[in-house]
């Protein structure tokens, strides 16, 4: 009987150990709603991870929290700005990558949030690429600072300053 117990203990250890091994690799999120998510137990919550990666500290932090409530009475312009800031902070790494490459879906979406017309998305990507070093100075540049510099570039651009109507304000 005792040995039977030892056998069971080994079996249990095997299983327990393997559970840890499986749960370890990075990037495990919501495995979906099937029993798959049962097997892997509580995973790192996607929103939590996103919160961890976006620059919600300092000023943007309060933006993220108050985005839900404080803008109810806010005017359209400041609502648009908040929308852009949240977008930029959550998609920051995708955005800078696309800026360096001169184009991409996130960049197009950001351009549309500035009110730029679709035929100017190309120019939008070009100025982001050409002035990348000015727009994103180094690794400490926050998404909000990035937006500020980007807006300056747009305002200084002959065509974009006219087509991207949402920049001013």
């Amino acid at each position, binding site marked *: 009987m005792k*040995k039977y117990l030892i056998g069971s203990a080994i079996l249990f250890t095997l299983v327990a150990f393997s*559970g840890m091994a499986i749960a370890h690799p*990075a990037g495990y999120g919501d495995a979906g709603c*099937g029993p798959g998510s049962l097997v892997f137990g509580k995973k790192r919550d996607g929103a939590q991870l996103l919160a961890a990666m976006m620059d919600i500290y300092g000023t943007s932090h309060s933006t993220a929290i108050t985005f839900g409530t404080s803008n109810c009475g806010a005017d359209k312009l400041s609502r648009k700005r908040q929308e852009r800031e*949240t977008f930029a902070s959550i998609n920051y790494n995708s955005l800078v990558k696309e800026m360096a*490459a001169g184009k991409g879906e996130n960049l197009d979406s950001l351009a*549309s949030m500035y009110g730029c017309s679709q035929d100017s998305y190309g120019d939008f990507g070009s100025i982001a690429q050409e002035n990348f070093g000015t727009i*994103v100075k180094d690794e400490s540049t926050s998404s909000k600072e990035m937006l500020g510099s980007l807006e300056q570039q747009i305002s200084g651009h002959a065509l974009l300053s006219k087509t991207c109507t949402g920049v001013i304000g």
Partner: protein
Amino acid sequence: MYPRDALISLFSCPPFPKTSTLRYPIRIIISFLTLVSLLCGPLWAQPSETNPYAEQLVQQALKKQLDQKRQWLLLIHYKETWLGGYESEADGMDFFNSPDGKTDPKAELIATIRNFFKDPESLKPKEEHPQCNFAARYKWLKRELSIDPGQLPNAECSRLTKWLTQLEPQSVTLIFSSFYMNNPASMFGHTFLRIDSKGKTNHTQLSNYGVNYAATTDTQSMLLYVFKGLFGYFKGTFSVFPYYLKVQEYSNMESRDLWEYQLNFTPDQIDTLMLHIWELGATHFDYYYFQENCSYHMLTVLEVANPDLELSDDFFISVQPVDTVKILTEQEGLISKITYRPAILSRMERKTDQMKDAEKDILYDLVENTDAIKEDPYQQLNTPQKALVLDAYLDYLEYKGLGKEGFDPKKPLRIPHAILLERSKLKYKRQDTEVTQFSAPPETAHGTDQLRLGVGVNDNEVFQEIAYHPTLHDIMAREVGYKEDSQFLFLDIVARYYYESKKYRLERFRLLDIISLTPYEPIFKKPSWKINLGVDTIRDLDCDYCNSFKGNIGYGYTYKPNHRSPYILFVMAELEAEASDKLEDDHRAGGGVSGGLFINFGENWKLQLSAEYKRFPLGNTSEYVRYDSKLRFSPAKDVDLRLEYQRFDQKDQGLFSINLFF
């Protein structure tokens, strides 16, 4: 603490109305009082009962038997019970107008109509009028009963109106997230909806909004998590959030391909859908992993939008995202467009596919060391080549950066600045608009239930076999729509009848059986692994097909020359423990090695050749060698035929089986 809730309800003002502040005990008291009132006559009268128009509408509704209409039953999420009555799947009492609303469609109908007449002056601060809280019901009843809004109190649904104006829904898309690397459990997928706003183009899909249904989990304990998930102890709620949040989560952080199914709904149906989502924000459902899960509730919501669709009734044992997508695609004319959104690593692979070997080597060098960018092999490339290598490298860096734990507020950028700067200085935009699909859409995948009927012979006798599992995909099955060379089986049971000895035997019961053979490559260096746990037959001892409890894990490597290669090779080190009263000392424990080959001949044929050696130094000391060869042919998506031969120690057995998927 991270502002999680704020993130999830990022959209606008809090998207959902907070209705009554009544607490559950009070509801019980009210229910009790209602009961008393039914028995002893009314204790209190609702103010609206005195409104003659309300009573006229109630009579009209009862005459038309609206409480039995499909749309009413759908709107309140009623399902027929075993006893022939009804019960709503909604579990938050704020969802009902009548205290008996959960089980009584008629009482709910009457109370709903009367509540629409509630005096707006009597609302508490921040309380919304029932006309606003139950907007989809109001819309439907207004139509069915030709209600004259002029005779109703004028409720200003300013928050609802604002919500709708900001969303400006134009079309609705169902999103399915595919599996991700090295995790067969993710083959289950996940589904949610996207509301496509007016004026959004293919370029600006990201800024649309999504509607998700998910469980709010409140435990870190694995056991509790499983228990609560299986038996409905988690609360499931609907939430609205920007689509880019989910794209970041699925496409970039987890690298799962997304499949987007645009639904062919009329503007009126979309309007009903939106109003219903608004209603659902005020309630919760008990979340059951197998039945009332995310995919199930997406279907119920779509049924409300178009009651002619019958989507949520046909499920056997469990509802799986793959199956719900299938049901939708089977409805004639429902899907107007299917779009594939490649995950970050699929996008990277699309780039590496276009590289020459020398370029790939440079990419691998960069993965090892960012400074390789300053060195010769990279510097000698021309601009388009540099851009291709750097774009692939940036995909890799973004994926790695997002996976990093912790966040340094001083360094919000998670991709090395030097690489970004180098890429921007090329002043070159790559024109690659083609998309390679690295996964197949779920509707092309085989069914998730599998039934096997087989006949076989061993050294002594002929036997018949019957096997079943409710989920999901075994490694020999047709792989379209699933992760290649992977397996995820849950509750897999195999029984046999032996003709000579006239015995029924449990051949195998696997609580869980997972295999993940991920080709080892220079970038991610992912290992392969497997785990299984359950009851097995001891084959190397003469114990009359006796059973044992068995657990096994393996860890190793898989080789595949490139992702289009038809074959893979694998090798694994394994640990195994077995317990049975038929074993000396009642157990044995040890380990061994296994290895072999899988070859795909197109999608319809697959061959496995493998061998393993196990030695048990603990308990019942023993050792054995086992060889397996299996051949599968799929004449159709949901049928396959298999021929298997196994040599276990000195014992042989052959099996021919037909496998049906549904």
